[in-house]
């Protein structure tokens, strides 16, 4: 089996003049003998929002805790605003890092009111200044009327806003959010996600979010790092992750789709069962090689005039559209997203057409 070798890719124009706000270099983390994160590198520019996306156990939360200063670093370094805050032999205490954090369970102080919670990190300021900032933040998160309430009197979404306001109050250089929406219901999650993004952008706060939910990541982040077994699989924008996954893991983890076997017929053409598609081919692949081609459900269109047909074997109604599982004559299955007024029965053959500008291909898994 040939592993998909990944190198860290940093996107966007990298200007040499201003150093990034946060640089994580060759970071390795672990307890005792276990390695949790290995060789992790990425950078974050001021005002950018990044997301670490991965399944549970991928090490994403450990990375966040290391940046916050709650975990020691085994190798590599974390540099914030030009200053090394974590390395194998260096550790700036968490409370001196000026990094804010929103915890998974909000971790609001039940014995303090909402206003006292938000003002908690501002004790160095004069009373008047402190209450000015608290009021400003209460306004910002839309809880101006609730400053005197206690956390247990708030809904989950409101608690979430208080936690965000509390973390923002001391004007941290960087904000970390650990699965901030995990305990909220789906509808609220999406709305809060957009609110949080707007708020962070308005205040120009750089942030790193950790989540296992790709929709949440897409809604909030400028850049997403996909973590898999403690290693970074890809660091890219949400659009690139979906349309240009760099390896099988990312292709499979992000979005839906199938891999169809094909044969390279020219340096940038691949032949599959549905015809020839244009696409880049993996390195050291010559003409005649076998490759796998990624087909997203939105690449496969329903077209009654097409001479290509496939049989509907399963369908899932999603409101505006159907997600059909189709079977080709060879037995190969693929997914197709079709507007929901095209209601076809299972077993029916329907015409399909590919719309694919640039196919993504991977070297096939070999049996040896």
């Amino acid at each position: 089996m040939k592993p998909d070798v990944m190198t860290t890719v940093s996107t966007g124009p990298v200007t040499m003049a201003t150093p990034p706000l946060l640089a994580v270099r060759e970071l390795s983390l672990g307890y005792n003998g276990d390695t949790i994160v290995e060789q992790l590198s990425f950078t974050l520019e001021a005002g950018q929002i990044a997301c670490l996306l991965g399944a549970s156990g991928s090490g994403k939360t450990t990375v966040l805790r290391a940046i916050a200063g709650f975990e020691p670093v085994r190798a590599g370094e974390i540099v914030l605003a030009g200053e090394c805050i974590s390395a194998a032999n260096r550790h700036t205490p968490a409370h001196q890092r000026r990094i804010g954090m929103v915890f998974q369970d909000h971790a609001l102080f039940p014995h303090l009111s909402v206003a006292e919670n938000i003002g908690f990190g501002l004790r160095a300021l004069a009373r008047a200044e402190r209450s000015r900032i608290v009021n400003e933040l209460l306004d910002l998160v839309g809880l101006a009327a609730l400053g005197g309430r206690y956390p247990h009197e708030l809904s989950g979404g409101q608690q979430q806003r208080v936690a965000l306001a509390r973390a923002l109050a001391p004007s941290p250089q960087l904000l970390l959010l650990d699965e901030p929406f995990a305990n909220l219901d789906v509808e609220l999650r999406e709305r809060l996600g957009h609110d949080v993004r707007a708020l962070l952008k308005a205040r120009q706060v750089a942030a790193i979010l950790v989540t296992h939910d790709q929709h949440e990541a897409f809604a909030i982040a400028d850049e997403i790092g996909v973590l898999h077994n403690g290693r970074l699989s890809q660091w890219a924008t949400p659009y690139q992750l979906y349309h240009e996954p760099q390896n099988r893991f990312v292709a499979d983890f992000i979005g839906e789709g199938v891999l169809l076997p094909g044969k390279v017929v020219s340096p940038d053409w691949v032949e599959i069962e549905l015809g020839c598609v244009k696409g880049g081919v993996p390195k050291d692949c010559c003409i005649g090689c076998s490759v796998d081609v990624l087909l997203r459900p939105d690449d496969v269109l329903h077209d009654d005039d097409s001479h290509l047909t496939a049989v509907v074997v399963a369908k899932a109604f999603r409101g505006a559209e159907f997600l059909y599982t189709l079977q080709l004559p060879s037995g190969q299955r693929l997914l197709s997203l079709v507007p929901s007024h095209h209601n076809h029965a299972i077993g029916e053959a329907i015409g399909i057409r590919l719309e694919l500008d640039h196919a993504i291909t991977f070297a096939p898994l070999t049996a040896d």
Partner: protein
Amino acid sequence: MTDIAPSAEPTPAPHGQRVRPAGRGWRRRWSRRHVAAAVIASLTLIPLLVLLAQFLVPQPEIWSHLREWVLPRVLANTFWLLLGVMAGVLALGIPLAWLTAVCEFPGRRVFRWALLLPLAMPAYVLAFVHVGLWDYTGPIQTLLRALFGDSLQLPSVRSRLGVIVVMSCAFYPYVYLLARSAFLTQGRRALEVAASLGLSPWQGFWRVALPLARPALVAGATLALMETLADFGTVSVFNYDTFTTAIYQSWFALYSLPAAAQLASLLTVTVLLLMLAERRLRAERRYGNSSRASAPLPRMRLRGARAWLATGFCLLVLVLAFLVPLVQLLYWVVERWADDADLRLLGFTGRSLLLSLLAALLVTAVALLLAYLQRLQRDRMMHTLARLGTLGYAIPGTVLAVGFFLPLAWLDNQLIAVMQAFGGEGHALLRGGLLTMLLAYLVRFLAVAHEPLDSGLARVSLYQDDAARSLGYTGWRLLRTVHLPQLKPALLTALLMVFVDVMKEMPITLMTRPFGWDTLAVRVFEMTSEGQWDRAAVPAVAIVLAGLLPVWLLIRQSETSLHERTR
């Protein structure tokens, strides 16, 4: 040992309240189950009401005597004792709990459970051992005189400070146990939140972790203060007059039962005020809806001098509160064994075991009945009755002794009058019988047995009852075939806890025992009141050894729940 968990809030039922078919008038509200529970609750209420009613009977000559000779000293002593013990148990319990829950240092894994061992040692045993150790003729002062000459003299151990230190050593485990479980669930996380807001660990401890643990601290300190108010043996050893010793002396030295009753009613009011204060402090705000740590967090590793300071502190407390007393006791036992191991010792032990067994069976049976009634009838009224019935853990033994003696003596007199009216001889039946003593035990220790049985029953799903009912099992058959087999561990716990508590119990036994019923605890009291510490050691060791059983049980429980939490 007894009152680790004050009666908990009702656990929400997996399915709704069972509503009985409507009857008529009061019967709709009062089923037979309610009546049974009310009978149990009235056992607690009768002595309380009898004593509170004392305030209604004006007794000016007694009051003027008390006001002049007793109350000033007793009130001042009680006040300073409560204040001192509260400071002491918090000063010991909080740092010990914090260190073993949140930090890592040499010996932590042993201290985690070993610091509960002092619960096995009744405060009065700790008291006489320390007095014997530090007294002018004791080994420590003798040694110091041998080293530094005769002019050296330590301040007397029989002082206010001495009582406070000994009681703090005896009662800190309540604070330790409750504070530690609070720190385990939120201590480390609290520091992280504080750090993310720019607070150092030290600031985070004071501003976040401690306020979050306040309900646990209040509960633990209240338990310690209840024990302090109820204590009779320790203050007797120190000749430090409090309500309990004043009640005893009024009754048994001055033969003034009315004066004892007046003092007991004052003590009752004090206890009720303390309970009220605790409720106010705890109910002020609802805690604990947030901050459940998602994963166990690593401990803070202490290094260098700090680590050894932590180890030293834990060791010092353990040595003073358990190890040294135990060694001294054993030393005395070896010294006295040849003289004191006689038939009389066998008698004390036998009566202690018999009484404890009788009481354990009675109390556990009533507690099971009460817990089962609560299960069958899940409504507000039943909940209130059960709360009242298990209130007795807060009422000092001296109060219960007086509170039961008064109505039973009255009843006795009525019976004698009736018997004489029918030409009978007429002598006391109830007074000085086992009944008073067992009733007082029942009230005092019902909560001890009720707690494990109630939580044991709560673990049996209510759907099991429904399933059994749908198969035709009801009432006693349901209890016997479905619940009792699942309750075995809880029943054993209840029996054991009551057994050991009765064995340690001093004032009720002392004041209400039938003639000739001297037990181990009574023997300890008699020997210590004569200052014969070494002779008190033999019965005391038996009590301590018995006391280790429930502590071992408690340690096992807390270690398992710890494993569940860290898994």
